[in-house]
């Protein structure tokens, strides 16, 4: 728990307000898995449309390898950088201010877009339920706004309550997948799965498998968000690696189970375009209670993801405001709730505006590409980190093995995924690149003059090797 206390109202500025160090590894797990798990309930299955069921499985494991590298690299660097900005703060210390600005923007855009997409999913789910009960044409907009407003209010009121709730609903969603698995898998009996009849050859060959990589990211996109909790955990050196790597393990198992269940019940032609593949799989089992369980699991997964995204996007924006990369006004901490309340409120209408466009696939694509840019940065970041601060020069809570192999693998797989994305969303890819280039120009000429350059390096590290 931080030793700082809120200053008296209108009093002198001798005491400081800071974020509260109240979180443990379980909260970090809940944050990471909570953001990601909605991808198991929907979205991953578009990889089946590109590469068939086997192509989707290959994408699941290849992208799983990409994200395992991300988790290992992030765990090492964040265990030494106990600050709210996560990868933004890492970039600031290891690469430089322009990279840091871009990474901060990647984080804010990726999580805000994902939050908007999750709110859209909640609205669509409720519309589908209303349709089923005879009310056609339910407007999803009020439910989209309510989802974002409620979760923003929760985040405003405190991080411990926010992530404890996230743990509960995420655990429920994980359990829903596990229950479905045990209901259909051939354990102690023949089971219900028909892999022999449903699995086919690669419908579009190996180019289809390559194209499937883009949607394989839905299984794991967002696990790197655990780093945003670094300033609010009781021990960053312990909680971040434990929560992140534990979360990655959970996701690898959940992703494989999801593929196994869905590909054994649904033909690939249907699976490749289904909106809610796990829910559809549960409907095929023919047990109403299972159907209800998966519906609630899908809803909880979307809410948990939006909740984690609000948490992470606001911390990244807050960190940039605190460093004056964005207006310093955003760097305020609530004196009672100890949350970055101005950043939380500022990003709320932005997320709602994106959600109101209704363009779920474009919003998701922007989020995926922003995330991909961040992962590419990580491969350079860890290489420079190890070179300038070798093992033994600073205390690391976790040291990832086989360096530089994970950073090389990460870079190669990111490159392959860029190509895969270009195959399907070339215009979006180029538009996003143009956006970040323009934003960088704005930063260099209009914001960097306000940055206190001497305050940028805050970590208690020795001089880097070679300086």
């Amino acid at each position, binding site marked *: 728990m931080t030793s700082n206390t809120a200053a008296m109202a209108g009093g002198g500025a001798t005491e*400081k307000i800071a974020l509260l160090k109240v979180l443990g590894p379980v909260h970090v797990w809940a944050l990471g898995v909570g953001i990601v798990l909605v991808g198991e309930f929907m979205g991953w299955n578009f990889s089946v449309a590109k590469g068939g069921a086997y192509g989707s499985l290959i994408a699941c494991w290849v992208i799983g390898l990409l994200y395992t590298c991300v988790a290992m690299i992030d765990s090492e660097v964040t265990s030494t950088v106990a600050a709210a900005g996560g990868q933004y703060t890492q970039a600031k210390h290891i690469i430089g201010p322009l990279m840091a600005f871009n990474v901060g923007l990647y984080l804010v855009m990726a999580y805000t877009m994902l939050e908007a997409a999750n709110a859209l999913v909640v609205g669509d789910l409720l519309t589908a339920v209303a349709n089923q009960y005879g009310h056609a044409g339910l407007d999803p907009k*009020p439910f989209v706004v*309510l989802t974002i407003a409620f979760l*923003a209010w929760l985040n405003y009121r405190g991080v411990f309550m926010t992530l404890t709730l996230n743990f509960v609903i995420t655990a429920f969603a994980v359990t829903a997948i596990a229950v479905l698995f045990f209901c259909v898998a051939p354990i102690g009996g023949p089971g219900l799965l028909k892999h022999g009849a449903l699995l086919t050859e690669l419908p579009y060959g190996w180019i289809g498998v390559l194209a499937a990589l883009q949607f394989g990211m839905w299984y794991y996109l967002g696990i790197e968000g655990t780093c945003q909790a670094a300033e609010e955990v009781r021990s960053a050196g312990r909680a971040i690696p434990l929560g992140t790597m534990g979360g990655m393990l959970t996701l690898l198992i959940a992703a494989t189970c999801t593929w196994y269940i869905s590909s054994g019940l649904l033909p690939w032609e249907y699976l490749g375009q289904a909106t809610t593949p796990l829910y559809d799989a549960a409907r095929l089992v023919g047990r109403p209670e299972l159907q209800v369980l998966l519906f609630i699991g899908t809803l909880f997964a979307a809410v948990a993801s939006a909740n984690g995204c609000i948490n992470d996007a606001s911390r990244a924006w807050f960190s940039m405001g*605190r460093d004056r990369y964005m207006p310093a006004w955003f760097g305020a901490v609530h004196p009672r709730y100890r949350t970055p309340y101005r950043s939380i409120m500022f990003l709320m209408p932005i997320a709602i505006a994106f959600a109101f466009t209704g363009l779920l696939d474009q919003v998701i694509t922007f989020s995926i590409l922003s995330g991909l840019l961040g992962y590419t940065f990580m491969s350079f970041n860890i290489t420079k980190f190890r070179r300038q601060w070798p093992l033994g020069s600073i205390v690391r809570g976790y040291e990832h093995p086989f360096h530089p192999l994970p950073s090389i693998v990460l870079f190669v797989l990111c490159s392959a995924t860029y190509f895969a994305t270009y195959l399907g969303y070339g215009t979006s890819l180029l538009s996003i690149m143009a956006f970040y280039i323009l934003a960088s120009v704005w930063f260099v000429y209009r914001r960097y003059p306000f940055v206190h350059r001497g305050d940028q390096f805050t970590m208690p590290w020795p001089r880097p090797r070679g300086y």
Partner: protein
Amino acid sequence: MDFWTFMEYAAWTISALLVGSMLIDARRIGRTYSDDVLLSSREGEE
């Protein structure tokens, strides 16, 4: 008014109340504490 129409209005109302409560609280905090205090958090400090 059927159940779902009522739910739509309820969602708008609750959203407005939640957003309104945050705005009112933020305004109260802004008037009670100076920006020197609210912006006093520093990266890397306990």
